């Protein structure tokens, strides 16, 4: 027989001003199964909680209903109090008579009656509550970080420094990401490589970090604390243990005119190459698509020249399988040149370039060694036009979101240009300048006011060539929308920052959700910006949304902290409010018929097939099983199950059924 305690809170006057709490307490006392019913001024105060604890002990309560505020407010408080008094915390429910009653209705009998209805409903529910034990899941304390840009590097280092093993996977031959391509960084104008390279080296040398460069995630199984990742190490075509990184092969390679990815197509590289001199690891790869040997079957010059005989033309890809407990996704972003604005002539005119190409032009390690020379003829540009929002914030022709980094890098570009070409005339066409951030606005002001950058507020309608100049036609909306034309030598487009091309595919491999732009989706836009909806997978950097370096680094450290917190326990403890599949003694074993329609409904791939076998090993039936590590407790599967074989703890069939009946049958059906 149930012995339920009902505790009605006045919440000062927040409840008692409109609800007759004495009447509620008296009515609750008459509900069958209620052994104790009291009201008190502040139930959440220490004396209030003591009231609950004492009653649990003295009246030997089997369940508690606290009629007070929203469970979203104080459910943890009262569950903890119950636990302290020796009652399983999951035998405590809250009846929300404040937010859902006293605050939204006028004082009167109807309001008091509704409060009684709510209490009766929760009493009916709590009678069907079951004592639940938290779920414990073992944790493999190894993190997988996908993406070796600044975000991935930072996360890896933070996790490794917390004492945990990290496996860092990078798709390109070297880590470093976009940051390694940058010239100088806003708002301090310090050299990007100078601040990045030490971190890269630290990664390479850290005893806790295993780096797989030129590698990609093949597949992922498992769940939080217990993932199994398969990583494809693409063939570098050389034996890394033998290669000393001397670079002879690169000097001798006869195929030398391949556009360099690192230089954003502005420079050239050989078929056997490292992307840039500071690469980590500093071991070349053979680009099999361009290599003469792979194309014609002849050459093998590098093989002959290599002092350590490290070249392996027949090396296959290698699959490595690793067990990891958490994953940080840090795959970064891409910039899109596509034809959002064909009228700007990108791809048609060599001197219309994007921001990343400008970075390479301005970089001391770039194709012009930092001299400002335009791609077409190497001339020093006298006039440069920067076009902001070349694709961003344009629902009609581009993408609707703001790429966030362009205002700042455009100001930086204009400034860098002025530093390198003193008499040069930089123009910036912009919609708005968005410079929120520490020292950002000041930086842009400096560009405008001290560095002689002409900011023109207006959009560019087209860019065309006339007499060897690039004519930029636009409007100056601050000067009465007057059409203007600027004859430029170089045009730089701040193209949109978009998701990496393979992002969608990767998200599907990992079962993380992604938004309409293929950026990975955070679990909550404000309160869980680092987590994904898949437990144990975290986000760092621009793979979630466009971000600048400090933001990426901050999120990377945030993700690392989440991983470290997860790894701080031997076992993962979770609320047991998850789905469970019926199990019974033989000969039934389970009422599940194994149709697995629940499987396609589960957003978390938490439903597995379990084969029930007899002692002789004979398959008796295949039934559903919920993986407690993956289940998040939404209960979608529960509503699908025709045999009612899946139930969800905390919101079970019996509980919700009892609530419905109790709510609608005032004083009638209280068995």
């Amino acid at each position, binding site marked *: 027989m149930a012995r339920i305690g009902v505790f009605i809170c006045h919440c000062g006057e927040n409840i008692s001003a409109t609800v007759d709490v004495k009447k509620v307490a008296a009515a609750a006392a008459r509900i069958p199964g209620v052994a104790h019913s009291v009201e008190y001024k502040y139930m959440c105060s220490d004396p209030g909680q003591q009231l609950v604890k004492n009653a649990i002990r003295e009246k030997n309560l089997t369940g508690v209903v606290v009629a007070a505020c929203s469970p979203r407010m104080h459910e943890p408080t009262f569950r903890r109090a119950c636990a302290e008094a020796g009652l399983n915390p999951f035998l405590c429910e809250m009846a929300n008579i404040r937010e859902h009653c006293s605050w939204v209705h006028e004082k009167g009998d109807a309001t008091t009656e509704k409060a009684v209805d709510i209490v009766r409903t929760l009493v009916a529910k709590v009678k069907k509550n079951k004592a639940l034990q938290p779920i414990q899941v073992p944790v493999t304390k190894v993190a997988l970080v996908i993406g070796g840009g600044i975000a991935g590097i930072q996360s890896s280092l933070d996790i490794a420094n917390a004492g945990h093993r990290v496996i860092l996977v990078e798709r390109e031959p070297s880590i470093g990401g976009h940051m390694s391509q940058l010239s100088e960084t806003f708002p301090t104008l310090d050299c990007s490589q100078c601040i990045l390279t030490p971190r890269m080296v630290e990664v390479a040398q850290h005893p806790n970090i295993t780096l797989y460069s030129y590698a990609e995630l093949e597949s992922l199984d498992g769940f939080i604390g217990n993932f199994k990742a398969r990583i494809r190490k693409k063939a570098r075509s050389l034996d890394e243990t033998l290669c000393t990184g001397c670079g002879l092969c690169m000097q001798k390679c006869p195929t030398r005119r391949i556009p360099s990815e690192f230089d954003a197509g502005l420079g050239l590289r050989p078929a056997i190459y490292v992307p840039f001199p500071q690469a980590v690891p500093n071991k070349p790869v053979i680009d099999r698509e361009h290599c003469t040997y792979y194309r014609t079957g002849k050459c093998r010059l590098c093989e002959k020249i290599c002092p350590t005989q490290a070249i392996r033309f027949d090396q296959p890809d290698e699959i490595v399988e690793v067990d990891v407990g958490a994953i940080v996704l840090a795959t970064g972003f891409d910039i899109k040149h596509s034809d959002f604005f064909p009228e700007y002539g990108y791809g048609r005119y060599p001197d219309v370039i994007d921001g990343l190409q400008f970075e390479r032009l301005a970089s001391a390690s770039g194709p012009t060694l930092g001299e400002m020379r335009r791609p077409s003829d190497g001339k020093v540009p006298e006039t440069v036009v920067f076009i902001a929002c070349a694709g961003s914030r344009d629902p009609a022709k581009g993408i609707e979101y703001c790429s966030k980094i362009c205002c700042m890098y455009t100001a930086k570009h204009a400034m860098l240009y002025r530093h390198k070409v003193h008499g040069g005339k930089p123009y910036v066409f912009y919609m708005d300048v968005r410079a929120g951030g520490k020292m950002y606005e000041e930086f842009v002001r400096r560009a405008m006011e001290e560095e002689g950058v002409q900011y023109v507020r207006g959009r560019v309608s087209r860019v065309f060539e006339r007499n060897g100049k690039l004519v930029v036609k636009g409007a100056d909306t601050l000067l009465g929308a007057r059409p203007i034309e600027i004859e430029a030598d170089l045009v730089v487009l701040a193209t949109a920052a978009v998701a990496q091309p393979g992002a969608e595919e990767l998200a599907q491999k990992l079962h993380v959700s992604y938004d309409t732009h293929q950026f990975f989706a955070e679990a909550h836009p404000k309160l869980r910006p680092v987590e994904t909806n898949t437990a144990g997978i975290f986000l760092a950097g621009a793979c979630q949304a466009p971000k600048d370096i400090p933001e990426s680094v901050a999120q990377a450290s945030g993700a690392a902290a989440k991983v470290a917190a997860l790894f701080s326990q031997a076992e993962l403890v979770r609320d047991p409010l998850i789905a469970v599949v019926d199990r019974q003694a033989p000969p039934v074993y389970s009422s599940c*018929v194994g149709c697995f329609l629940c499987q396609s409904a589960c957003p978390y791939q938490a439903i597995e097939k379990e084969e029930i076998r007899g002692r002789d090993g004979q398959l008796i039936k295949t039934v559903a099983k919920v993986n407690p590590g993956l289940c998040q407790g939404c209960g979608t599967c529960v509503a699908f199950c025709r045999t009612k074989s899946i139930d969800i703890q905390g919101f079970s069939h019996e509980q919700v059924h009892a609530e419905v009946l109790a709510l609608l049958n005032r004083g009638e059906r209280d068995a």
Partner: protein
Amino acid sequence: MNALQEKARELLATKTVRVVIGYGPGSGGQARALFVREAAQARELIFDETCLQNLAVYLMKPDVRQLGKAALVARPATLRTLLQLAAENQLEENSLLALVPGADGVLSLSTFSALEAQVASQDNELSVAEKSELEKFAAMGLDARREFWQEQFSRCLKCYACRAACPLCYCTRCTVECNQPQWIPVPAHDLGNLEWNVMRAMHLAGRCTNCGDCSRACPVGIPLYLLNQKLILDVSANFNSRSGMTAKADHSLSTFKPDDPEDFIK
């Protein structure tokens, strides 16, 4: 011996299958299910317009499963049912031979792709007559529809013949058998009958292959097919999907599209 009988005889004689589930002559000029286990008995098989039962129902019965590998004489709806059962993990590939008698002899299908191809080649749509009957219903008005169904359901005995005859009602524990809580009242009173029938229809939504056996089974003649066909139309109109077309799990109610209609949601 006709082609079907010959095929059955051969399958049994070669022990390719242990039983051929087909149709034989029954009472009152109707056909009935016939379980042929000896080659010699194959000549009793018939296949004509009286052969209506969806024999796939027997694949889900343990008493029949224990006979060993089966060949099953399949009508168009039976083939859809087989695919739906496959999609619901109830039928393993190549565990069964579906025999489809046709003008050019008897097709014998065992792979899912063969079943899918056969189903794709047949007419799976509701007939014009079926659609127009549903339209007539829609035009009847809410009150008239309520009265109609209340009268129909008032006759329901809860004998569950509809359930037993349905090859997709293979659950070993039906919702009506759950009593903690008691979802469906056991008594055959108006409320119990309504809830049972709503539940039966909902549980077949997106799954029913329109064989019609539930209606044929009902001893008091409740036109259950109307409910099934209504939901078949709704599933097709709203989700552009149809049950029994593929052996892959593709249940229209446990999947979704982000742009599903929602004009009824405030």
